[in-house]
Structure formats: C-alpha cells, structure tokens
C-alpha cells in the first residue's frame, strides 16, 4: 500500500470505512490517522499520517506469536487467526507501530459505546439482533488457501486483532475499504512486487519512506509526499480512544 501524505486531508474517512467494513467495536482503530502538530506559534506546522498495519515483510509480531495465530501470508498480508489466538498480547508489545487491539470486552459490551442497543425489540425485528446491525457476513468466512478465520468476525473477547488489509475484500479482488473510500485517493493498494500494479506505478520516481525503517521491520506500507513524523510531533484532536468511555 502506498500512502500519499501530500494528499491526505486527515479526514479519517478511511478510519470510518474500516470500522464499518470490519465491524470493529468502539476504540478499536485498525486504520488510524494521526493529526500532528510541530513547532511553536506562529511557526507551527500540521501534518496527517494514516497508520494501517504496516504488514511488515519482517514482522516482529509474527516472530513472537507463540501459537502461530499471527502469520504472514505469501502475498504479504499479515493476519491473525482468531480461532487460535490465546490472547497473550505478545504481538502487541512486539509491534512498534501500535496497530494491535485486544478485545478487552465481550462483543456486546464492546459495541455498547455505539449506543446500538442490540436487544432493542424494534431494532431486532429488522436486524435479527446482529452485532453490529451492519454486520458484514464476509467476516465470518474462512479466508485464503489456509482457510483460517482471519477476517475479524465477531471480535471475540480475549483475542488480539488488527488490520487485515480487508482480506475478505482482497480475496475477491477488491481494494481495502480504506483505499476505496479515501476522498482524495491518498491510498493506493496493490502488489508491490508486480512492477505494473497501480501501487508500483504510483510509487515510481517518488521520494519514499517507511515508518520506523531503522528497525528493520521492512513494512509494505510506503509513504510518499511527506516526511516521517519527528519525535517532537504532538497529536492534536485525538478521538475517544478509551474503552467504556462513551457518553453513556
């Protein structure tokens, strides 16, 4: 995936598309967009930085997973087997990008912040009580050659999840939800090894960087049109990111 920081408006449409496509509960941001600020008034600068899972070629999370629940597919996508994860959260501490999310709560609790009242009889009559009501059935399917439950599904309590590059869409030949929705087309998806793929074409001849390249993780998310965030960057406009902190 290529991300053009020169285009990104920081609108977080990708964040929202991801949440809806993958039915993630509140405070879970498989895709996240930093809104950053540096400098002192009036020499202030603002920048935006989308942060999906970096799907590293040398993923620290895969290396440390004790049960092989976190694995690296041949096509480069790093996935979690939700049936195998034991919830030790080692992947989460090993990942320098902070892309992992543990299901601290049961799904119905986790969606409670979204005020969806799944047990509401009037609503259940329409949705069959699904959690969430816009539940995507593709997530329940087993994915890929490995036929594993890797696409998010019910966000079981006690397992770790993260961005899957929308494996359920990629398997059908579609781009990830974040890429499709980006209003300014700042995200480009494709096979980096294929020189004719849209992403390779997009990257050709542009200055690039990868996040925390010095760690040797070799991410397959490549940023163009900007510079890596400096350690002085301060986050502004943070969403509500705690669990159970909605205005209930």
């Amino acid at each position: 995936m290529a991300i053009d920081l020169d285009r990104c408006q920081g609108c977080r449409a990708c964040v929202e598309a991801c949440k809806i496509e993958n039915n993630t509960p509140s405070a879970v941001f498989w895709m996240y967009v930093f809104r950053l600020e540096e400098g002192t008034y009036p020499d202030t600068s603002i920048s935006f930085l989308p942060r999906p899972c970096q799907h590293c070629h040398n993923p620290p999370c895969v290396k440390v997973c004790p049960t092989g629940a976190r694995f690296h597919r041949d096509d480069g996508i790093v996935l979690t087997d939700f049936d195998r994860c034991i919830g030790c959260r080692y992947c989460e501490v090993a990942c320098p990008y902070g892309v992992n999310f543990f299901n601290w709560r049961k799904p119905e609790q986790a969606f409670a912040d979204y005020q969806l009242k799944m047990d509401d009889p009037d609503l259940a009559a329409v949705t069959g009580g699904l959690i969430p009501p816009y539940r995507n059935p593709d997530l329940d399917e087993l994915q890929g050659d490995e036929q594993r439950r890797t696409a998010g599904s019910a966000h079981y309590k006690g397992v770790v999840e993260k961005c899957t590059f929308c494996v359920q869409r990629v398997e059908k030949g579609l781009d990830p939800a974040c890429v499709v929705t980006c209003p300014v087309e700042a995200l480009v998806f494709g096979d980096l090894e294929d020189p004719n793929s849209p992403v390779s074409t997009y990257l050709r001849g542009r200055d690039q960087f990868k996040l925390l390249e010095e760690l040797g993780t070799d991410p397959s998310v490549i940023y163009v049109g900007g510079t890596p965030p400096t350690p002085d960057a301060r986050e502004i406009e943070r969403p509500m990111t705690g669990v159970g902190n909605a205005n209930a």
Partner: protein
Amino acid sequence: MTKRGVVTIGMILVGAVLMVWSYFVGAAPWCATGVECSNPRVEWAPALFVLGVVVAFSSALYYSIAKDK
C-alpha cells in the same frame, strides 16, 4: 551395563530425541515469517517437546525407583 542403566540412558535418549526432533522438525520450522511457520509440521509437536522433557527427567525416577531384580 545393567538393564537399569540401559533403560535410563534409553529414556534420556528418547527424551532428547523427542525434544530435538519436535523443536527442530516437528514444531514450526526455522523460518522467520512464512505462512508455513505458523503451523507446526506435526500437530501437538510442542506437547511432544514437553513429553521429551518429561521422559528425559523421568529417567531419573526410573533409575532411582526401579526395583532390583
């Protein structure tokens, strides 16, 4: 060598082989990240490793406890 010694050494060897085999062969092989490394080649291989440890150390039990003929 006594039967006790043979069995004990045998158990240690069996344990060691189990450990070495399950660790280097039966479990997920020595690759860093590939999809094939996410599954052990032989399911329950890690259990076999533990079994190897158990067998090896059980040899001490056998050695100590086994009745003399």
